[in-house]
C-alpha cells in the first residue's frame, strides 16, 4: 500500500473524534467559561455537570429509562426473530416471499409517519409513558432487521446439521436451543448489536411515546435548552455520557463487526 494512503484512515478518524473531543471539552467547563470565550481545553476544570447528572434523579433516570427500553426491545426483537428466521431459512410456505418483503418494507417506514398514529395507538392500549411502548414501537424496525440478519447467518449452516439431530432423536426445541443456537452465536451477537444500535439512537418515537415516568435521556436533555437558558456544560456532560453505552457495545462485538456488516450474505 502506498505510504500516503496509509494516512487516510488516520485523518478520517481524527475528523470523527473532533466533535467528541469538543463535547468532552465543554462537559468539563462551567457554562460561564463556555459562553465567555473560546478555549481548547478547560481553564477552570470542573466535574460539577457530571455530579449534577449522577445525583439528580430527573437526569439519571433518563439514562435508566433509555437503557430499559433498549434492552427490552433487543431481547424481544431477537427472540421472536429467531424462530421466524429459521422458518424463512429452512422452509417454503404459502406467502413466504411476500411476507419477507413486507417485513423489510417496514424498515423503510419514516418514523415521522408513525409518530402521531403510535401516540394514539399506545395511549389507547394504556402503554403510553412506559418503556414497553417505546420497546414495542421500535420492534417495527428492529424485528425485520433481526430476521434479515439471522436468516443470512442461518442459511450458512447446512441442513445436514438439523437432519442429523432429528435422526439422533432430538426434539425440535432441544435441537434449537442446544445445537442450533450455539452454531449461530455470532449471528445472534450481530443481530443484538444492530437492534441495540437502532433502538438506542432513535429518539423521535421515544420522545413521542413518553412524557414523565419513562422519559428517555433525550427528552431530559432538551429541557436544559428551554427552562434555564442554555446550560451548555450540563448538556455536554449528558451527551458525553450517552456515548459510553455505545462504546462498550462496540468494544464487545469488535471482532464481529466486519462479519456483521457482511450480513452473512456478502
Amino acid at each position, binding site marked *: 500500500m502506498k505510504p500516503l494512503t496509509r494516512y487516510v484512515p488516520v485523518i478520517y478518524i481524527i475528523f470523527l473524534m473532533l466533535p467528541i473531543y469538543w*463535547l468532552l471539552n465543554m462537559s468539563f467547563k462551567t457554562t460561564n467559561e463556555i459562553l465567555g470565550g473560546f478555549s481548547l481545553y478547560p481553564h477552570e476544570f470542573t466535574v460539577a455537570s457530571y455530579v449534577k447528572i449522577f445525583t439528580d434523579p430527573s437526569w439519571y433516570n433518563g439514562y435508566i429509562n433509555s437503557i430499559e427500553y433498549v434492552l427490552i426491545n433487543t431481547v424481544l426483537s431477537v427472540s421472536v426473530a429467531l424462530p421466524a428466521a429459521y*422458518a424463512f431459512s429452512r422452509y417454503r410456505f404459502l406467502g413466504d416471499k411476500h411476507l419477507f418483503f413486507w417485513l423489510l418494507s417496514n424498515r423503510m417506514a419514516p418514523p415521522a409517519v408513525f409518530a*402521531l398514529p403510535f401516540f394514539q395507538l399506545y395511549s389507547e392500549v394504556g402503554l403510553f409513558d412506559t418503556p414497553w411502548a417505546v420497546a414495542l414501537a421500535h420492534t417495527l424496525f428492529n424485528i425485520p432487521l433481526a430476521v434479515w440478519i439471522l436468516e443470512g447467518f442461518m442459511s450458512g449452516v447446512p441442513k445436514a446439521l438439523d437432519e442429523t439431530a432429528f435422526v439422533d432423536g432430538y426434539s425440535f426445541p432441544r435441537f434449537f436451543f442446544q445445537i442450533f443456537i450455539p452454531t449461530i452465536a455470532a449471528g445472534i451477537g450481530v443481530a443484538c448489536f444492530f437492534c441495540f444500535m437502532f433502538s438506542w439512537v432513535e429518539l423521535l418515537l421515544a420522545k413521542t411515546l413518553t412524557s414523565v415516568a419513562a422519559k428517555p435521556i433525550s427528552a431530559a436533555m432538551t429541557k436544559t435548552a428551554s427552562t434555564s437558558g442554555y446550560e451548555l456544560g450540563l448538556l455536554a456532560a449528558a451527551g458525553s455520557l450517552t456515548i459510553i453505552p455505545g462504546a462498550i457495545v462496540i468494544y464487545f462485538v469488535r471482532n464481529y463487526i466486519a462479519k456483521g456488516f457482511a450480513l452473512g450474505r456478502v
Partner: protein
Amino acid sequence: MSSKAVNQKAWFLVAPVFLLVAFNALIPLMTVVNFSVQETFGDNVFTWSGVIWFEQVMHSERFHGALFRQIMFSAIVLAIEVPLGLGIALTMPRKGPWVSVCLVLMSLPLLIPYNVVGAMWNIMALPDIGLLGKGINALGIDYNYTRQPISAWFTLVLMDVWHWTSLVALLCYAGLVSIPDAYYQAAKVDGARTWAVFRFIQLPKLKHVLTIAVLLRFMDSFMIYTEAVVLTGGGPGSATTFLSIDLVKTALGQFDLGPAAAMSIIYFIIILAVSWLFYTLMMKNEEA
C-alpha cells in the same frame, strides 16, 4: 435454495413476528389512511372528504418546498458519502493489530443518539464559541448557521457525512475483506496496476455491498429528523425543513390530521417506490 422443504406449519414459527409487526404497522397505517380521507371539526366527528387532503398537499407550496429540499439533501449526501466511504474502506488496514482499533473508532459516531449528534454539532458550529464556528470565521469567512441558509446547509451536510460515512465504509470494508487473496495474487501475476485491480476485481465484487449502502443511505437520509431538528430546527426560516420535519410540525405541532395523514402516505409511497427499484436491481445483480 430449492432444497427447502415445503411446510405450512412454518407459519407457527413466523406468527409472533407477524403479529408484532402487524400490530405496529397495520393498525397505525389504517389510522393514517382513515385520517387522510376524512375531515373533522372537533368532538370526534369525522366526515368523508375523499381526496381533498391529497390534493391540498400535492398542490401546497410548502410541501413542494420540503420535498425539493429533501431530494437535494439526499442527493448531496449520497454523492459525498458513497465514494468517500468506499475510498476510506480501500485504505483501511486488512490485517494486523490496527484493524480492531480502526473499526471500533469508526463505528463510534454510529452509536451516538441522534439528538446528541445534533447537539454536538449545534454547539460546535456556534460562531463565537464553537470549534467549527470559530475556526471558519477565523479563516475570514462569514459563517453563522443560525442565520444563513447556506451555512445551515453546509453544517447539516457536514454533520451527516460525519455521522454516516462510517456505515458505508464498514459495509464496503466487509465486502473487500471477503475477496479471496487469490484474486489479488492473480492480478499481480498478470501484471495489473492498482487502478486495474480496483476496476476489474474490487469494484465488481463490491456491487452487492454498494447497492445495500446506497439503499440504506437513501432511505435513512430521506427520513432524517432528530439530528436536523436539533441542529437547525428546520431553519433559518424553512431553509432546512425536510419532509419529516414538515410532517411532524403538521401532525404533532398543528394537529392538522388530514393533511398530515395524506402527506404521510405520499411520503411512504415515494420511499417504497424508490427502494423497491433498488431492491429489484439488487436481486437482478445477484442472479447475474
